[in-house]
């Protein structure tokens, strides 16, 4: 399959290369140039919209900043093309950072709101800053002269083609690297991602800046292609078109943005030519009716599901015949198209084609690249990134208070975890065990109190930086990256072992390959350790519950923690599995990792814990060796209600 894929990619590039000779009409060559430029921008926009799952309504403005940076540099300072383009990328990336750094601090629709405001303001600023941008009159720019040769429209086509191919390679490599995996992980489960040291905030900003840089590249290329730029181009309407292109072409694909670019470049032409519009809308209506009839026949869809989309497409076709001019209805048609795609084609055209292929030729589609690395015993363990320096207690929590409104989930809790021990944390439901975990890992910021870990105060630090310090955890309600394979989940945990940068990823340097190989061997070894070696390439969401819990342990160990927090690891395990789990925890302890264990299976707690702390209503009611705890009156009272004497 990959051979077929490679051949078709080479063929596609070859076809694109000979197109201008087959079709030497300057108008069409210019259209193709614009398609290429839009495709570069859309590849970047897809990183934000498709992979990270944020909505940007400011990409037209970023495109404009790229255009105007090149335009102003050329117009005011006569900077050459080859310098103006990288400058545009840098400036636009900077603007992206200015937007993303504040807007992504909070979850919610903030990025969409901020970028929308940004889009309007930028257009106003371009108009107002006449001394720089020449205001509404616009800027004129000439295509560069290289070695005494004036670059023509056709020459420029090849320049854009090269830029597009390079952009494709860069985006493909980034998304297949640990960076792309981080993007997918934070979209899949933000909390788990943070607790694996992959900061959701940092990588969202990273993705947005990358995407802004590509918008800058596209913008600067656009300046030289049009040779004249004015503020009106970079309107809200263009932003809408870009988003339409990304979702219509198909998110999370490389072909989708190219297809989307073709659609939005052709769309205005289609809408200005009523005959063409009639033909195309009739064609789409016929396809929709036929496909719905087929889907009904094989019972893939119900009548209720297909009625509205069929009616909409038919209505669109009919409207073409009723009206003799549809240019005025342009925005309505864009709006209807977006609604239609969001509801009935959520994965876009490429996603739809893919689902058809899956239906008829499932062996052609590979959702994941299988990682066939075999694990072994010596690669399971590695030293922590931050060696344990403190003697005595590895972690000390002093007077922890966690208050939710009027409820004190934790009230003045002191906790001392001895280095190398297995420390049990038990208590009835609602006693504050999981809250303790969440406070220790930085998910909650404690209302009062202090946590010292390995000689460092970590209170108030972010979950990802705490994970980086060497605290790993599992979750009571499993938080795996469901759409990733088991081994990919572990690789997210190994994210901290990838020290190479974006540049290494783009050029696939030996260092990049070395670290990738090492991580894959390590991941396979960890899977073997928890007994999931044969399920390495299975999607995590398809694993049975008990195995998912084991996978979480493997993923947590990948962080090379010095402290491992296990939140009810035995829940959902069968008796023989529990025996293996106990052996596993003992092995983890043997390798110098301190463990905090929350568990309701008392036999597990009593057999492996050195010290047990008992919580009740957010307060520590007892602490001691398992034997002492078992006979402690307060503990018995908390669990059974009423005193032991009274019973």
């Amino acid at each position, binding site marked *: 399959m990959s051979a077929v894929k490679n051949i078709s990619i080479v063929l596609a590039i070859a076809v694109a290369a000979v197109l201008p000779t087959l079709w030497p009409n300057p108008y069409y060559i210019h259209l193709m140039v614009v398609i290429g430029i839009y495709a570069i921008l859309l590849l970047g926009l897809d990183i934000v919209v498709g992979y990270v799952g944020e*909505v940007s309504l400011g990409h037209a403005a970023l495109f404009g900043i790229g255009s105007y940076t090149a335009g102003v540099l050329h117009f005011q300072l006569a900077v050459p093309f080859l310098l103006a383009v990288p400058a545009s990328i840098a400036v636009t990336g900077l603007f992206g950072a200015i937007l993303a*750094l*504040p807007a992504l601090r909070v979850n919610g*629709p903030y990025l969409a709101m*901020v970028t929308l*405001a940004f889009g309007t303001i930028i257009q106003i600023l371009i108009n107002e800053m006449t001394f720089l941008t020449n205001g509404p009159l616009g800027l004129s720019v000439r295509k560069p002269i290289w070695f005494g040769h004036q670059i023509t429209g056709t020459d420029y086509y090849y320049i854009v083609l090269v830029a597009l191919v390079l952009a494709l390679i860069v985006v493909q490599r980034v998304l297949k690297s640990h960076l792309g995996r981080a993007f997918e992980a934070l979209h899949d489960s933000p909390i788990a991602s943070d607790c694996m040291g992959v900061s959701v905030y940092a990588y969202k900003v990273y993705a947005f800046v990358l995407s802004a840089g590509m918008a800058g590249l596209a913008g600067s290329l656009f300046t030289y292609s049009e040779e004249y730029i004015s503020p009106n181009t970079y309107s809200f309407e263009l932003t809408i078109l870009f988003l339409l292109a990304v979702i219509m072409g198909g998110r999370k694909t490389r072909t989708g943005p190219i297809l989307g670019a073709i659609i939005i470049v052709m769309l205005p032409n289609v809408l200005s030519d009523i005959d063409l519009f009639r033909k195309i809308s009739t064609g789409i209506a016929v396809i929709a009716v036929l496909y719905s009839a087929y889907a009904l026949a094989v019972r893939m869809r119900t009548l209720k599901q297909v009625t509205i989309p069929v009616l909409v497409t038919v209505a669109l076709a009919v409207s073409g015949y009723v009206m003799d001019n549809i240019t005025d209805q342009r925005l309505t048609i864009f709006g209807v198209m977006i609604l239609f795609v969001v509801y009935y084609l959520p994965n876009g055209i490429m996603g739809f084609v893919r689902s058809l292929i899956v239906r008829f030729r499932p062996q052609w589609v590979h959702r994941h690249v299988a990682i066939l690395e075999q694990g072994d015993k010596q690669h399971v363990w590695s030293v922590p990134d931050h060696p344990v320096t403190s003697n005595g207690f590895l972690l000390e929590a002093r007077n922890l208070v966690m208050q939710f409104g009027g409820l004190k989930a934790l009230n003045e809790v002191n906790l001392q975890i001895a280095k190398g021990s297995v420390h049990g944390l038990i208590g009835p439901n609602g006693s504050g065990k999981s809250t303790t975990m969440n406070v220790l890992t930085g998910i909650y910021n404690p209302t009062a109190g202090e946590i010292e870990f390995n000689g460092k105060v970590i209170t108030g630090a972010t979950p990802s930086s705490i994970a980086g310090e060497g605290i790993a955890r599992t979750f009571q309600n499993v938080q795996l990256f469901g759409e990733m394979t088991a081994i990919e989940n572990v690789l997210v945990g190994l994210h901290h072992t990838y020290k190479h940068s974006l540049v290494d990823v783009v050029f696939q340097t030996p260092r990049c390959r070395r670290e990738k190989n090492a991580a894959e061997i390590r991941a396979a070894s960890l899977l073997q350790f928890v007994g999931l070696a044969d399920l390495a390439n299975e999607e995590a969401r398809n694993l049975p519950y008990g195995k998912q819990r084991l996978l979480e342990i493997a993923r947590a160990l990948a962080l090379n923690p010095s402290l491992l927090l296990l939140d009810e690891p035995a829940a959902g395990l069968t008796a023989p599995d529990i025996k293996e789990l106990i052996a596993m925890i003992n092995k983890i302890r043997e390798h110098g990792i301190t463990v905090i264990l929350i568990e309701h299976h008392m036999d597990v707690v009593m057999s492996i814990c050195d010290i047990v702390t008992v919580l009740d209503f957010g307060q520590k009611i007892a602490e001691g060796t398992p034997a002492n705890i078992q006979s402690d009156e307060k503990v018995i009272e908390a669990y059974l209600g009423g005193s032991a004497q009274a019973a």
Partner: protein
Amino acid sequence: MEILAQLIVSGIALGMIYALIAFGYQLTFATSGTLNFGQGEALMLGALVGLTLVGHMSYWLMIPLVLVFGALQGIFVERVGVQPAIKTKSEFGWIMTTISLAIIFKNVAENVWGHDDITFPSPLPTSPLQFMGIRVLPMEILVVVGALAIMLAVELFNRKSIYGKAVVATSNDRDAAGLMGINTGMVITFSYALSSMTAAFAGVLIAPLTLTGSTMGVVLGLKAFSVAIIGGLNSGMGVIVGGLILGIAETTTGYYVSTGYKDVPGLLLLLLVLAIKPSGIFGKSVIKKV
């Protein structure tokens, strides 16, 4: 000094309109975690429908009809755009659908009422009143009073009536409210009706002071985003203060810097507030439970 006082007074009227639109964002954000990116268009439609009605009746009689129209428009947006996206829990979905409905409304308005801005006949005298050398238009007073009145009415409804309690319960915890037998889907639809209704009302309040046209809503809706974030998406007090801050910032920038730059402080304030206190000046930061 007098000029500054004058600018502040003019800024207050503008700020109250922003506050009223932002209040509409809060209503839906509280119940469903979504907001209507076409709120500015709801305002614009309210103003234009009001303009058409005013040809046949008095301004005061037109207001209740516009309120009804606004509510119906909000229900339409919620049913077509938001409800399906809430079901699939897709943030991308509701943002895109409310935006596409917004551009459809704008396009329809362009085709019905034309591209040009139209003056809206003022129901009150257009000669300014003088207070200690500061000129105030009677219509500006009406804007402030009207905006405060409708916000107060909605707040009273939410606090005192049993239906309002359903809204508050849904805002606090949608799942729990659902389990207590509250039809939360209905509450969300209702919040959209209220939200668009306040926007339409804002439209007929502001229209006599500015020009009426299909593009009037875009910038107002956008400014109200800034106000909602500056004040805090969950603070009723916040939108009023946020609206006043932005309104005054704009009139003063317009006078002391340049009218061309009067839209800039909105974005700067927005970015600044997000950088310093992302939950807004008056917003409570909510601890997300895991």
